[in-house]
């Protein structure tokens, strides 16, 4: 009878079905509509750039982990997500080597140098975008948004808004679908596709509604107060991509519910300060990166009330 080979372990003895890999795969599924729009609008080079980013990210991760003699965890799909997001943040005119350098920076410096998955204090794809923007400003902005149709303008809607050239502004419907002559980074042109993906993540319980909804609402309200069209502001630039897929990065956003609300309002506020009075036409990336830095602090001050702990008791303890 005692020849049974029984495992002895501490409870619980059952685990939920999901895993880090399944969560990352769902994020990739959610990014597919925007990828499809990118392929349709910008052509094959858009897909190739995203593929270059993905491959560079995965290879970089594998090499670094091998060098550091750590288990190679590329099968958790997190490097793939970083790759797709970085690809989405590049202009269609970006050369292949920019994609590679950005990927290496995102994975090697921003992610692995700080301890790998879950330990990065900034969103790797966004940090890489900021790095590329600072290093090759011309290759990363206006002139790189090569038009695919024969429209004359090459400026992004937010740049038009900033310079006051409202005559060449695409219609709000075009901004929403992104299918017809709207310029921007590869993955950010279609608000519709990004909202679809974002809703999928919220329904699957992978992200909370708090960060994207409050972020977007804050932007809309400030636009309204500033006397500008809130729809143009929320459908243009990187807001949808940023709100649903970048600001919600687990590692660099607060985990507490109250913290997420403060963080999202902060993102919206900084985005609009940059858009309305800053030098750049777009402020989504920098607003998220700045709020990433505040996330640990916000978290510390927004802990939930612990069951059974009353204020008097807490003070007595302190």
């Amino acid at each position, binding site marked *: *009878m*005692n020849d*049974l*080979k*029984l*495992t*002895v*372990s*501490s*409870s*619980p*003895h*059952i*685990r*939920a079905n*999901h*895993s*880090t890999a*399944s*969560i990352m795969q769902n994020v990739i599924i959610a990014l597919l509509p925007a990828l499809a729009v990118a392929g349709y609008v910008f052509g094959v080079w858009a897909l190739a750039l995203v593929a270059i980013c993905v491959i560079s990210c995965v290879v970089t991760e594998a090499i670094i982990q091998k060098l550091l003699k750590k288990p190679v*965890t590329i099968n*958790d799909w*997190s490097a793939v997500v970083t790759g797709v997001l970085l690809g989405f943040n590049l202009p269609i005119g970006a050369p292949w080597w920019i994609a590679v350098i950005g990927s290496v920076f995102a994975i090697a410096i921003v992610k692995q140098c700080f*301890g*790998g*998955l*879950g*330990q990065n204090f900034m969103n790797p794809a966004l940090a890489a975008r900021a790095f590329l923007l600072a290093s090759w400003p011309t290759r990363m902005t206006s002139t790189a948004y090569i038009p695919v149709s024969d429209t004359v303008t090459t400026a992004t809607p937010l740049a038009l808004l900033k310079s006051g050239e409202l005559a060449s502004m695409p219609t709000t419907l075009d901004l929403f679908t992104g299918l017809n002559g709207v310029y921007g980074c590869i993955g950010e042109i279609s608000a519709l596709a990004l909202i679809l993906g974002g809703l999928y993540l919220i329904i699957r319980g992978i992200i909370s509604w708090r960060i994207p909804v409050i972020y977007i609402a804050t932007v809309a309200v400030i636009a309204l107060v500033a006397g500008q069209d809130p729809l143009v502001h929320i459908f243009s630039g990187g807001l949808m991509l940023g709100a649903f897929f970048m600001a919600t990065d*687990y*590692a660099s956003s607060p*985990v*507490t519910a109250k913290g997420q609300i403060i963080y999202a309002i902060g993102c919206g506020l900084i985005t609009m300060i940059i858009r309305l009075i800053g030098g750049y036409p777009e402020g989504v990336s920098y607003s998220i990166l700045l709020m990433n830095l505040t996330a640990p602090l916000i978290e510390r001050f927004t*802990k*939930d*009330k*612990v*069951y*059974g*702990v*009353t204020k008097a*008791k807490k003070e007595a303890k302190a």
Partner: protein
Amino acid sequence: MDVKHGTFKGGIHPPYGKESTAGVPLGFGDAPKVVTIPMSLHIGAPCTPVVKKGDQVYLGQKIGEANGFVSAPIHASVSGKVIAVEEKPHPNGDLVMSVVIESDGQDTVDPAIKPYGSLSEMEPDAIKKMILDAGIVGLGGATFPTHVKLAIPPDKHVDCIVLNGAECEPYLTADHHLMLTKPEKVVMGLKIAMKSVGVSKGYIGVEDNKNDAIEALVKAAGSDTGIEVYSLHTKYPQGAEKQLITAVTGREVPSGGLPADAGVVVMNVGTAAQIAETMETGMPLYKRNLTCTGDAIKNPQTLEVRVGVELQSVIDQCGGFASDPGKVIMGGPMMGVTQFQTNVPVIKGTSGILCLTVESAKIPEPSNCIHCGKCMTVCPIHLQPLYLSEYSQRNRWDKCEQNNVMDCIECGSCSFICPAKRTLISSIRVAKREIIAQRRKGN
């Protein structure tokens, strides 16, 4: 009677796995040839054996004397001959002094046992003594001596009793079957307990995946206005003491306190039914319902089994193993204790024997925390398991304590939900043990 609905914030929805035994009628364990009764069947001081090898014992005769206040006497679960009084393997993993009785198959009841009479004739103190003498302990699994629970310290004010029929542990249907087969006993036991502590309000909380049990209890409670049945949202850990109290009364048990600090005494429905049974027949606690189930069991079933019966013989009665078992768990999958071997006895707290196949018993490889915060969302105490676990792994017990680690009820929801398969609850347990050890040293 209106059935009110209650719930708490947090919790998880594990796969329930109750279908395989909920629909099968309650079975009865085969009469055992030998029973091994450990002298530790409860939380508290172990008993001293009062029989010796060669003695003849009756069914229901006291064989272990309680030592101290937090303890409960132990009785023979068969009639027959004591063949050994020695250390035997216990489900907690230790060797424990045990009385081994060879059954004569007669089940001759101890002639000293007689019914206690009716509730109206019994005074509160007599009820408490009856509960102590019958060795009644919490049958939900914690096995805390019931007479201790009912002895309310004079500085605390209790105004209601809540019966726990939530049975939120997946797979288990022991309480479900009990509430279906003995609803009037559950209600009677509640009334007895209410009289013993002098309260006029009693609640029974049952998860809403057991609507048939809720109906049966409502019917059994009849027009009694002092008793209310609550339908609780099906969610783990709905049956955890604190969560149950909050779901039913809306009160919170203060941190570090007992239910009595919230004016409540909580008791399992099985415990209540046993109290009623004892008053009616005089018989002590010597048998209980348990669910023998899991994907490694051929014919899963809930059975009424005597204390002291070997797990293996219960498993055999349920058709044996369908395939090689990887884990044998006493209790449910969320909080149950894994066993090294199947030759340990059923004890008073054995609510289930869960056998998982080698495949289901595989322990997943943990990876980096991705900071998703799911553990925090599900924590019924609203702690931050991700950080507590990190502090614990760095031996920062001070940080653990500051962040209320001692309030953790060890329900395991955090480990269940973690997508990175981190062993959150294990490291939190380590921190709790360390802090308790340090406090002892400090004193």
